[in-house]
């Protein structure tokens, strides 16, 4: 494969996917124990998209995320302890507990950021990319969105503007077959959302969203193109949401045979098998243990962190001083 990552980097991609999966499972347990608040959108089964795509970026590149962003956050390098603390509403969270799991941002690592409005971050991503272009910064914006967001008007406006001005922006459509509970065939006039790229005069590429190396390669190509000033690319990563829309989803709309058909395509065991062949079972077991320890530490850090004091609310509604 062209530009294939080294085996060490592949091991790290695997480890990060495993961190995300274990984090999601921990959130599921905490939710059942009543220790999390509000609906939480887990990305079980989709880890390869977020981890593979963000690994193709530089630290100074920007990621805009979605309501289902845990793999994007971990991939871009957010500290898992501070991430978990944010999800638990703690003062030590990346946003001091003000955002919650849908609105995680971490400027230090280029995550700006999570967005709970479907498609709402796409116009923002256009502005971020515009700033890179106008300021002659050699950076790109990677905008994640889903097949649900692909049906919102803001998505069309953003794709057209970014293509028109050749902005350094990568549109990554994470096609998991469902917008909330409704199957994509009941939401979209086309099955392949990458085909819409033609209408904007930009490259569109379909990639196996459950293959972390394929996602990484496609994103690296798109980011290089964007850095060369040739404009945006639309990548459609075909994947599947193994669980419900959120922790409050009662299910009943994902046919069991559909879930069963996707289960063998789970990106994590498949990558594990590949790495066992390349690096041996012992190395993979060590990666698993490392991921488990990281998540255990993150959960413990969050649980022992303080809740914010209500003095947080006294700062007033405006930023003071000059812009």
């Amino acid at each position, binding site marked *: 494969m062209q530009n294939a990552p080294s085996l060490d980097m592949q091991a790290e991609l695997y480890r990060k996917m495993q961190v995300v999966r274990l984090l999601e499972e921990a959130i599921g347990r905490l939710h059942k124990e009543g220790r999390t608040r509000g609906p939480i959108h887990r990305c079980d089964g989709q880890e390869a998209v977020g981890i593979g795509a963000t690994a193709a970026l530089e630290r100074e590149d920007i990621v805009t995320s979605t309501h289902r962003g845990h793999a994007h956050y971990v991939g871009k390098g957010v500290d898992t302890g501070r991430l978990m603390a944010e999800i638990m509403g703690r003062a030590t969270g990346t946003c001091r507990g003000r955002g919650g799991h849908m609105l995680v941002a971490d*400027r230090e690592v280029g995550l*700006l950021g999570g967005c709970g*409005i479907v498609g709402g971050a796409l*116009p923002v991503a256009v502005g971020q990319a515009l700033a890179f272009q106008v300021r002659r910064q050699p950076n790109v914006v990677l905008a994640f969105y889903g097949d649900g967001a692909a049906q919102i008007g803001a998505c069309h*406006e953003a794709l057209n503007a970014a293509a028109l001005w050749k902005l350094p922006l990568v549109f990554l459509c994470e096609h998991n077959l469902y917008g909330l509970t409704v199957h994509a065939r009941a939401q979209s006039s086309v099955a392949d959302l990458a085909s819409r790229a033609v209408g904007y005069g930009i490259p569109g590429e379909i990639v196996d969203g459950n293959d972390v190396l394929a996602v990484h390669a496609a994103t690296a190509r798109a980011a290089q193109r964007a850095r060369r000033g040739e404009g945006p690319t639309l990548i459609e990563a075909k994947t599947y949401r193994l669980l419900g829309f959120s922790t409050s989803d009662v299910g009943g709309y994902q046919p069991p045979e559909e879930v069963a058909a996707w289960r063998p395509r789970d990106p994590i065991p498949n990558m594990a098998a590949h790495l066992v062949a390349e690096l041996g079972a012992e190395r993979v077991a060590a990666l698993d243990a490392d991921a488990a320890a990281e998540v255990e530490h993150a959960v413990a850090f969050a649980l022992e962190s303080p809740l914010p004091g209500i003095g947080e609310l006294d700062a007033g*509604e405006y*930023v003071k001083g000059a812009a």
Partner: protein
Amino acid sequence: MAELRYAEALHAALLGEMRRDPSVVVFGEDVGVYGGVFKVTRDMQAEFGPERVRDTPISEQVIAGMAVGASMMGLKPVAEIMYIDFLPLCLDQLLNQASVLPFVWGDQVTLPFVLRTQGGAGAGAGAQHSKSLEAMVAHIPGIKVVMPATPADAKGLLAAAIRDPNPVVFIEHKFLYNTRGPVPDGEHLVEIGKAAIARPGGDVTIVASSRMVLESLKAAEALATEGISAEVVDIRTLRPLDAATIVESVRRTHRCVVVNEGWRFGGYGAELAATIGEFAFGWLDAPVARLGALDMPVPYSQPLELATIPDAARIAAAARDAVRAGHG
């Protein structure tokens, strides 16, 4: 001090800020080659180039979203939404992004952008190009809302808005662009969040914004011939509101009329009346009179259109009633 039209004063502020600060960029519909439908950005693309003065597609969500995204990455966008009637198309970006992100992201970003727009009835532009939606925007925390009534304030408030680290919605009025007035030369800044006494008086306070300030001044002129001394307060900034200046005036005059061009029900006048009720109730000799547009779409035909919005005669009548009630 030059005599300038309101549109020229806005142009002067924008030109001054763009020359002063290379991070200021202008974008919106028709702002580039054409210079804006109200000519506020006239000749700017020729001076600063199409990258800094950019014509956009008719994509209001992207215009507002670009202001959010570009401002968090170091630019100071001055975006234009041609009519305030189009602002609802980008309301998600104001309500769910601009208002939200600086706070919920834990102070990691500031959004120093200005969103210029204009509203107001009376030009025969019909129901979708004549509204006054300032109350809708002034409802949103974290965003400042400015409405200059005079050319001098148009210049000073726009320059201040561009230098402000917060999102500012800057609402102009289509009937004010051709009004003239003295405007300070060179750098001129008017502090956001400060009302002005447009005309001092002692019998009744008329609190107004934008073009209604001009109508209120006409009303005050007419009232003076009847021996009624009306004070006109131009609030200039709707959010954050300078309640102190209004309350101080009402405590002196004991009567108050609030007037806005937007719909009366749930409108900005309700916020003013409530503020006066909270802080000047014991000083009032009459109920606060509240004037606003009729709660209906703006009709096209001229007599119908003019009948839906407050004017000098109606403001004077309300002030007269307040003064009489105060004597009763």
